[in-house]
């Protein structure tokens, strides 16, 4: 029987890996099973012999799998690419306009930062599922994020990669608040008043 071997690793787990990553990894693993790919890794932890077994794979193993399960070197089903190791295709800076919990999407204004010429601003609807659980509390109107779209080469095959990372903003400090109010008072004192009223 074809099998997929999922291995944990002693290395620290990537702190940005999320349940969503795990979910997408499961999809990839299912695809590997269907395509009868055999993946072998040095450290055996979990052996998956059919799709049902995937449901039982522990989150820890799946986290490891996210980083350490590799694609087959040769695949008759997949086309061959000659792209560089990792190539950024587009980078956008986005601002959340609104969040629609009923459709699980958010609307965003997107400013191109790389890969789009001319750099024309666009707007789009994006599924909340693309946001990592670590960033989900940041998805609010006005929040700023970076959307990266890449091609990644791994052992001869090239796959699409994409990521949304939200900007986490620091809190005001007491000193900043004091300076802020001081600056406002100073400007207020310097600004001229009403020039002329029509009576």
């Amino acid at each position: 029987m074809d099998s997929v071997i999922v291995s944990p690793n002693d290395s620290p787990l990537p702190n940005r890996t999320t349940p969503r990553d795990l979910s997408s990894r499961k999809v990839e693993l299912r695809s590997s099973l269907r395509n009868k790919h055999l993946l072998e890794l040095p450290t055996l932890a979990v052996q998956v012999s059919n799709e049902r077994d995937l449901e039982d794979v522990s989150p820890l193993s799946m986290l490891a799998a996210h980083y350490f399960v590799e694609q087959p070197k040769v695949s008759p089903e997949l086309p061959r690419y000659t792209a560089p190791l990792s190539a950024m295709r587009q980078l956008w800076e986005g601002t959340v306009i609104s969040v629609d919990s009923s459709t699980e999407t958010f609307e965003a204004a997107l400013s191109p930062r790389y890969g789009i010429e001319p750099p024309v601003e666009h707007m789009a609807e994006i599924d909340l599922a693309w946001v990592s659980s670590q960033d989900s509390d940041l998805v609010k109107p006005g929040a700023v994020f970076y959307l990266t779209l890449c091609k990644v080469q791994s052992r001869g095959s090239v796959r699409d990669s994409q990521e949304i990372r939200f900007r986490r903003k620091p809190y005001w400090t007491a000193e900043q608040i004091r300076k802020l109010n001081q600056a406002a008072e100073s400007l207020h004192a310097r600004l001229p008043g009403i020039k002329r009223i029509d009576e």
Partner: protein
Amino acid sequence: MINYGSAPAIDELEITIFGPGFGEAVAIHLGENSWLLVDSCINPENNEPATRHYLDSIGVADPSVKVIVASHWHDDHVRGLSELANRYPSAEFYYSSVFNEKECLAFLKAYSGDDSLQLSKGTQELAAVLETHTSRCFPAHHKVVVFEANIAGRSVIVRAFSPTPAAARQCIAHFAQYVPKAAGVDPRNHAPDVQPNAESVVLHIEFGDDAILLGSDLEDQGERGWQMLTESSYCLSKQKASAYKVAHHGSKSGDHTNIWSNLLIGAPHAVMTPFHWGGNRLPTDLDRARIQGYTSKAHISSNGTSRPTLSGDQLKTASRLCNKLVRRNPAFGAVRLRRKPGDIDWSVELFGHASKL
């Protein structure tokens, strides 16, 4: 690139309204080469402030700009405003009087990039002008005279109709609640979307026996908005306008039947800019129908397609994450009205993607 032709004749009045889809700017020739600029937006064709590019292209010298007005602080009305203030150093700069209060200045400072993360153009642009050009910045509110002169044999007077005292009080309280107060509690965040636009400066420009009304983004909120202005004896005593920059992008919330009956002549010229921001699209079809019911002489600065400008490959890549991808500023255009003494009506010229409503 749009060819705007030549400057107006010395005694010719002009109002030109620019809008790309997200943004609005107005240039007004008061006569004898004196210009008033209201708000600012960027022309996406050259990334320049639309009015500065316009004045350069028709050959207007810098000292001819007498007054610049920031009607309110929202992003779609201020982009390039600080560039205008820098470029025209002899112009007086008017802004909504609510920002002449400490609480509101603290709001501007909090979200303008000194200590925050430069996340809002509106606060950033307005704060930059007030800080850099302090001595020529003057607050405007109900009954403030912004400009007055005798030009080409006509008395020209520019008055602010708003904000009213009630609107100003509401705005100051509203802005004050967003000023950070506690360390470690309030994040240094993007400027909140403070609604409604009660601080907006509505301008009435009287030229002898004719007038223009610029509705800014004022909405109808009883004594804080159009209801109060259209019943105010002060506003009612002024010349009815034959040309109207429709308030708040033609939205229902920016409209009131009294505007059309009390402040405008019958069937005036009505010009508006669209507002495309996420799912918000103004004017809506209902808004268009309502305005067409008031006048057949209605125009819009931009009526173009919002299809993405990306190549097929770029679009395919972006569509991996982005659904319903559209251009933020679909198409830039301008509507120009000109009128010489003795002309029966304004002449209308359309540029770029401007069209009849």
